[in-house]
C-alpha cells in the first residue's frame, strides 16, 4: 500500500504541481484546496503525512495543525508547513509542526525532507 500524503494549499497551481511531484515520487496524494474542509478530510483519510500552507482563506494552516495535534492519535503523523511567509518558520514551530519548507522549494530537497520524516515515523511505530 502506497504511503498517503495529504497536501493543503489554496493556490491551485502549487497544489497541482506538488501533487504531480509527489505522485511521480510514488506517493498516494490527497490534494485539498479549501482549508475549511481540510480537518474533516484529514480525519476521514488519515494520511501518513500532512503538507500544508499557512496563509489560506477560511482557516490558516497553523490553526489546522494545532487543532489536529491536540488529538493524541495524531502526534505521530508528521505535519509540515510549506509557506512563502518569512515568519513561516516561527509560526510552524509554535503551532507544533514537525518541519518547515520555504516556497519556492526544491524538488529534491522537498522529497528528502518528507522521506526523512516518514522514515522517522515508521521507525517510531515499531
Amino acid at each position: 500500500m502506497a504511503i498517503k500524503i495529504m497536501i493543503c494549499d489554496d493556490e491551485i497551481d502549487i497544489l497541482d504541481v506538488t501533487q504531480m511531484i509527489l505522485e511521480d515520487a510514488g506517493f498516494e496524494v490527497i490534494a485539498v484546496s479549501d482549508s475549511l474542509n481540510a480537518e474533516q478530510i484529514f480525519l476521514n483519510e488519515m494520511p501518513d503525512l500532512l503538507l500544508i500552507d499557512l496563509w489560506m482563506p477560511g482557516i490558516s494552516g497553523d490553526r489546522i495543525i494545532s487543532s489536529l495535534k491536540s488529538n493524541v492519535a495524531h502526534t505521530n503523523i508528521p505535519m509540515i508547513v510549506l509557506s512563502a511567509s518569512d515568519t513561516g518558520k516561527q509560526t510552524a514551530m509554535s503551532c507544533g509542526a514537525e518541519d518547515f519548507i520555504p516556497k519556492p522549494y526544491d524538488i529534491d530537497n522537498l522529497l528528502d525532507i518528507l522521506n526523512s520524516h516518514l522514515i522517522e515515523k515508521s521507525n517510531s511505530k515499531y
Partner: protein
Amino acid sequence: MEDFLVNLPDFGNADLRLFAAALHASSNGVVITDHNQPDEPIIYCNNAFENLTGYTKKEIIGHNCRFLQGEDRNQKSRNLLRAAIKDGEHCTVLLRNYKKDGKMLWNELMISPIKNPQGIVTHFIGIQNDVTKRVNAENELVEERELLDEQVRERTHNLEESESYLSAIVETIRESLIVLDSELKILSANENFCSFFRERYQDIIGENLFKIGNGQWDIPELRQLLLNILPHNNPFEGFEMENEFASIGRKMLILNARQMTLKGKYQDRILLAIEDITERKAIEYRKEDFINIASHEMKTPLTSIKGNFQLLEKIAKRNNDTTYLKGFATAGKSIGRLERLIHDLLDVARMQSGKIQFNFEPFSFRKLIEDAVNVLEQSSPEHKISMTGIADITVEGDFGRLEQVMINLLSNAVKYSPVEKGINVHLSMLSGYCKVSVTDSGVGIHKRDHKRIFERFYRADEISERFPGVGVGLYVCSQIIKEHKGTLWVESEEDKGSVFSFTIPLKQNQYGN
C-alpha cells in the same frame, strides 16, 4: 599758647579760656558768630576751620559764613539755617561749600544758639564737619544702586522676552507638553496638549495627571516611569504606549520625560512631552503588510514555475531525453537568479523599514564557510573552489544571514571568473575578529567603484552594465555584515580579479556599538 589767647575773644573768664583752647584743638571746624550785630559776623574760628576752608583768619573774621557757598546759593538747607537763626534754634544741615581754591566740600553743619541768662540769643556756635568722602561714597552707592536697578530691570526685561520667546516655542511645537510637580500634579500644559486631548486648561491645572480624563493616563508602567524620574534623576525617552482615550479614541503615543531644574527656583519638576505617532505607526504597518504581501505574491508563481520546471527536468533525465538539456540548464539558472533577486529586494525593503530580523547564535565559523562552498560547488560544479587558512572557532551571529553573504560573494566570484581559473576562500583570525576573503580571477573592479558597488541601487544601470546580474546583493551583504558589527570591502584592479573580504567580531556584545 600766647598766640592763642591773643586771637581769642575776651570771655573774661579763665575756665572759659580752657574750653576755648579745647575748641581750638578740635579737628572739626568751629565758628562763633555775634547774633547782636547785623548779618551774623564771625567773631571766632578755630584752626580746623582755616584748614577746612583754605582761608585765613583775617579773611574770615567779620564775614557772614555764607561766603563759603560761593555762587552755589540755590540750596534748600539755606532756608533751614535762616529759619533756625531767626528763631534762635538748633539745626543740622548738609551744605555744598567751596574752599578758597574752588574745590567743593560737603559741609555737615551744626549750629546752636548761645543764650544769656535772660534767654536772649547772643551768639551762635557753628561746627563744620567735612563729610565730602562720606557723601561721595554715599552718592556712589546710590549711583551704583541705580545702575544695579537698571541692570535688574534690563535683565527682567530680557527674561520676560526670552520667556515669551520660549513660550512661543512651547506653544508652536507640535508635541504636547506638560509640566508636573513631584506629586505628578499638572503645573502647566501647552496649547497642543489641551487641543489634542480635548481638555480645558483651567480644568487640568493643579490636577493629578492620573485623575484627569477619567483616569485614562493611569497606566501602571507610566506611573512607575514618572515616579522614578525625580528620586534618581532618571529620565525616560521613547516610551511607546497605546491607549484608548475617551475623547479622541485609540492613540499610539510616544512619551519622553525629564527632570527640569532652574537654579535656585526649583528642581522637582517633570517635563513630559507626548507625541502622537498613531498615523506613523499605521503607515509602518501598511508598509510591512505590503512587503509581506509582495513577498508572498512573488514567491507563489515562482513556486509553481520552479516545481513544474524541476519535475519536467527530472522526467526528461529519467527518460534519457537530452533534447532540452541546454534549455533546462539555462532556465534553472534564471529561476535561481530570479529567486535570489526577489529575496534580495525583499531584504532591502525590510532593511529600510528596520524590519529585518537577526537571530544571533553561536556556531562554527568553519561550518558556515564549508556549507556555502558546498552550495556553490553543487550549482557550479565546473568552478574549482579552494579553501586555505584556519578559523576553527565558534562565532556569534545569524548563521542563515551570514551564509547568504558567503553564497552571494561566492556566486559573484563564479559569475565573473573564467571557468579555468579557480576561486580561493581564505579564513583567518585576527584579535577578536575572524576574517574571510574570497579571491577570484575575474574582470576586476575599477577603484572608483569599490565603494559604490555596496550602495543600494547606485546608478544601477552603470553598475549592471559592467557587472550584469550583480543586483542589490552586495548592498544586502554589507547591511548584514554591518548588523554583525563587522566590515565588508573589496580590493581589486581591473582585469586582475577581486578580493572580497569581511570581518565579524567573535562575540557580538563584546564590541558594543
